[in-house]
């Protein structure tokens, strides 16, 4: 009768599609990713359909999000960061909506899957690499050699910097997935207490679940913000080289 708290993270195939040995089935994860994309597109369509100089409330909210992303890039990268606004904006909105859709009861949290978050993080990593090489050429490798180092220490410093550079996508993905998974498991376990401890504690776990769900919504928004701002910091390394 006990519910396994890890059952909520199982990816179930809804429509099995097999492309020449590759499994490209339509899963419940895909449904929520499509739903997130649809919500983002329809929100910005209706908010910006009639652009007014004195904006309506919906338009103000959409412009606030745009200002926040542009402010993040301006702070981290500077004026030359304006060209990354579509990338960081899409990343932020997608992670935010996927996290928030996971808070709906009986839904599936897309970003709890390490594969999804690793895909996003490796995209940021390759964006940093490719933009670093395009903007700076071969002198992009100077990001591995910090200034003011004695030359005998240089090989060790290069190895250390390389390790730190490669740890970025790993830590980005694990941070997002671990926060979402931990929050959802905690809510599931306490909810299990509501059922099994009803004789001793009556309804006491229920206010605790309300508080936990509120905290989890805050964590969902915060983790989307942290993902976006760390991507901006890594882009700064590529564009400005220290």
């Amino acid at each position, binding site marked *: 009768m006990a519910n396994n708290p890890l059952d909520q993270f199982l990816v179930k195939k809804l429509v099995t599609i097999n492309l020449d040995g590759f499994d490209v089935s339509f899963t419940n994860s895909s449904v929520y990713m499509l739903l997130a994309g649809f919500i983002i597109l329809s929100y910005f369509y209706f908010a910006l359909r009639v652009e007014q100089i004195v904006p309506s409330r919906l338009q103000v909210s959409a412009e606030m999000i745009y200002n926040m992303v542009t402010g993040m890039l301006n*702070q981290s990268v500077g004026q030359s960061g304006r060209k990354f606004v579509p990338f960081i904006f899409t990343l932020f909105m997608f992670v935010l909506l996927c996290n928030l859709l996971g808070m709906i009861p009986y839904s599936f949290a897309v970003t709890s899957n390490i594969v999804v978050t690793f895909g996003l993080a490796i995209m940021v990593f390759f964006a940093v690499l490719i933009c670093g090489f395009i903007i700076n050429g071969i002198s992009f490798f100077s990001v591995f050699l910090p200034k003011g180092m004695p030359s005998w220490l240089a090989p060790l410093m290069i*190895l*250390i910097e390389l390790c730190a550079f490669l740890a970025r996508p790993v*830590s980005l993905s694990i941070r997002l997935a671990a926060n979402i998974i931990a929050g959802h498991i905690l809510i599931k376990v306490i909810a299990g207490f509501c059922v099994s401890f009803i004789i001793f504690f009556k309804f006491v776990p229920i206010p605790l679940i309300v508080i936990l769900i509120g905290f989890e919504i805050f964590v969902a928004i915060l983790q989307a913000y942290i993902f976006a701002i760390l991507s901006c*910091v890594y882009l700064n390394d590529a564009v400005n080289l220290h």
Partner: protein
Amino acid sequence: MPHRDELSKAEERLRQLKLQHGLANTKNGKKVVSIDALSIAIDLVSSIMVGLVIGYWLDKFFDSKPICIIIFVLVGSLAGAKIIWQKLNIKNR
């Protein structure tokens, strides 16, 4: 209007001073990066993991079983310590 000229000159001097002291891209003198405790732990663990994976792969390539793993786990832990030091430095400035 004379005040507007003075204001723009003062802004220009402020910008030059900020550039001199390497604070060009900061707001209130701090680079705004929000971190929490779990984030720092994940950074440390992920750099040790990356060091382990690189060391294991190099060991398979050069067939020298424990040496590369040991070296690169140490390098990975130093890299993790460096990441944490950088993030804490930014937060406490």
